[in-house]
């Protein structure tokens, strides 16, 4: 087997193991901590007898391992049980909210990724001159603020003072794509700002790292044009780090989405999760939590696999 293929298969296997371990960790956490679904339904005043009855009814008295595999099987097959608070199936809610969240994340990624790479290149091209310093300053400022505060600053100026965009991002199927995009313009702007800062700093570092290596100097010294140096020598080696940066930041977007959705009252997964935490709806929290964790882990696995595939040294073994 080709060595690259072996590495990729190994990485994927490790990833699946990690996914299983992460789901077990999340499930285990709610098991060890005091309180369970029965306690949440009956409240603090419940008698021990009532609790025991309800636990038996809900199947909570069976061993944790059995329930873990049932729960995991349910998530994989799409049967996630019902929410505690409104008794509605969790799967229906998630199907509807997931597409909303993906819509938001998709547009944020579409804008931030090319912009970050472009700005990173500019920062490297004008290293230590004013464009570089300006970009670094702005990113430092946006890293120093939590997402929700950036969101309220944007709302204050762009929604309330200038009336450019709505401060609540409510979308529905009856709207045209343009109307939907207008509705989510501020949340997309916040997410872009948050990810852009990280992504650009890391892109800048990755490209600088490549540009300072010995083979680039050799290529310059043997008289290649700047274009050829970048195209033939720098670019192939910079793909892997840049793709890694992009993937790590898309994973970061997953977390940013939680907070931003709450600020803009956007009907997505993040808001569902936070609502459930506030209402102590453990089954919903478990399912949403494991989905968020899985997306995060899968994006990180993709980053690893792409960087293996893009590494010229591994592709052409001696």
């Amino acid at each position, binding site marked *: 087997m080709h060595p690259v293929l072996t590495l990729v298969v190994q990485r994927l296997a490790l990833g699946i193991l990690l996914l299983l371990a992460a789901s077990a960790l999340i499930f285990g956490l709610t098991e060890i*901590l005091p309180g369970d679904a029965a306690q949440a339904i009956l409240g603090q005043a419940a008698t021990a007898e009532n609790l025991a009855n309800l636990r038996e009814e809900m199947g909570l008295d069976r061993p944790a391992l059995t329930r873990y595999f049932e729960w995991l099987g349910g998530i994989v097959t799409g049967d996630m049980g019902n929410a505690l608070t409104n008794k509605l199936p969790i799967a229906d809610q998630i199907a509807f909210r997931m597409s909303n969240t993906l819509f938001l994340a998709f547009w944020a990624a579409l804008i931030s990724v090319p912009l970050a790479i472009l700005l990173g290149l500019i920062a490297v091209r004008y290293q230590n001159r004013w464009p570089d310093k300006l970009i670094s300053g702005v990113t430092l400022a946006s890293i*120093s603020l*939590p997402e929700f505060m950036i969101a*309220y600053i944007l709302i*204050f100026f762009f929604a309330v003072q200038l009336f450019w965009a709505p401060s609540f991002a409510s979308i529905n199927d009856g709207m045209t794509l343009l109307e939907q995009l207008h509705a989510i313009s501020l949340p997309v702007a916040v997410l872009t700002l948050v990810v852009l800062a990280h992504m650009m700093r890391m892109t800048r570092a990755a490209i600088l790292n490549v540009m300072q290596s010995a083979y680039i100097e050799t290529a310059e010294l043997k008289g290649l044009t700047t274009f050829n140096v970048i195209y033939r020598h720098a670019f192939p080696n910079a793909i892997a780090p840049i793709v890694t940066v992009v993937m790590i930041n898309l994973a970061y977007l997953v*977390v940013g989405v939680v907070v931003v959705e709450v600020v803009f009252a956007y009907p997505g997964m993040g808001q569902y999760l936070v609502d459930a935490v506030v209402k102590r709806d453990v089954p919903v929290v478990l399912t949403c*939590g494991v989905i*968020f964790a899985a997306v995060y882990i899968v994006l990180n696995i993709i980053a690893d696999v792409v960087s293996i595939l893009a590494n010229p040294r591994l592709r052409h073994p001696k």
Partner: protein
Amino acid sequence: MLKNVPLSAVIGLFITASYFLAAIFASVISPYGMAETVGDVWEPSRIGYMLGLMPEGTPRPEYWLGTDQIGRDLLTRMIYGGQTTIFIATAATILSFVTGSVLGFLAAVTGGWFDQLMSRFVDLMMAIPSLILALVILSSIEATVLTLIVLMGLLDSTRVYRLARAVAVDISVMDYVEAARLRGEKLAWIIFREILPNALSPLVAEMGLRFIFMVLFISTLSFLGIGVQPPLADWGGIVKENKDGINFGIGAALYPALAIATLAISVNLVADWVLNRTTSLKGGRG
């Protein structure tokens, strides 16, 4: 000693120190009580008046930053809020560093199965975003100041563990550590007398960044309504309480943003200086 400190670090130190002093002496410098209702809802701020942001002829407002959504003095709320936020962030940072570095050093020095077990568990913890883990945990336990500190400190100690272990692995193969082992020193001596002093500078530089991360983390949790609970004030909570005002053009919810940003930038300036100073002394190592 202060002669060689760059201007940026002096500014950073000054602002950071002011925030900490304001937090410590909150009850002395606050004009009113923390939960005391003193005026009407969202009264304008005197600072805005002095900057000429209000129309001519309006009377001079009573309160420096105005009042909040139920008529409490915002300056007081901001000072007490800073106290809660900075206290929780500091305590969680200390917990995170003590746990993370002790376990990291221990893993580096002993190696073997303990190192493997700890490192793989930390890998697993870090594969899940901290916010998601915190949300899952906070859905089962009551959010009090103590549980928040323990939760945030332990979640963050994974990152300190990685750094401490990486630094300590380099140090533990040095000749003087080998000599200490051969002298027959105990594990505690090797960790605290041989490794800790030499690993301190990268850890201290990292501490600033972790502290800022804690401030952002607790603010986010409080904003989501699962962190610090009212009537206790904290910066994230002040945003949550006053966010409806934004839609009427009232900027009360934006003060915490200013506070967090200035604190974060000044701590970063200090951390940069510590990092530069310690690395240049050692010829770029650390």
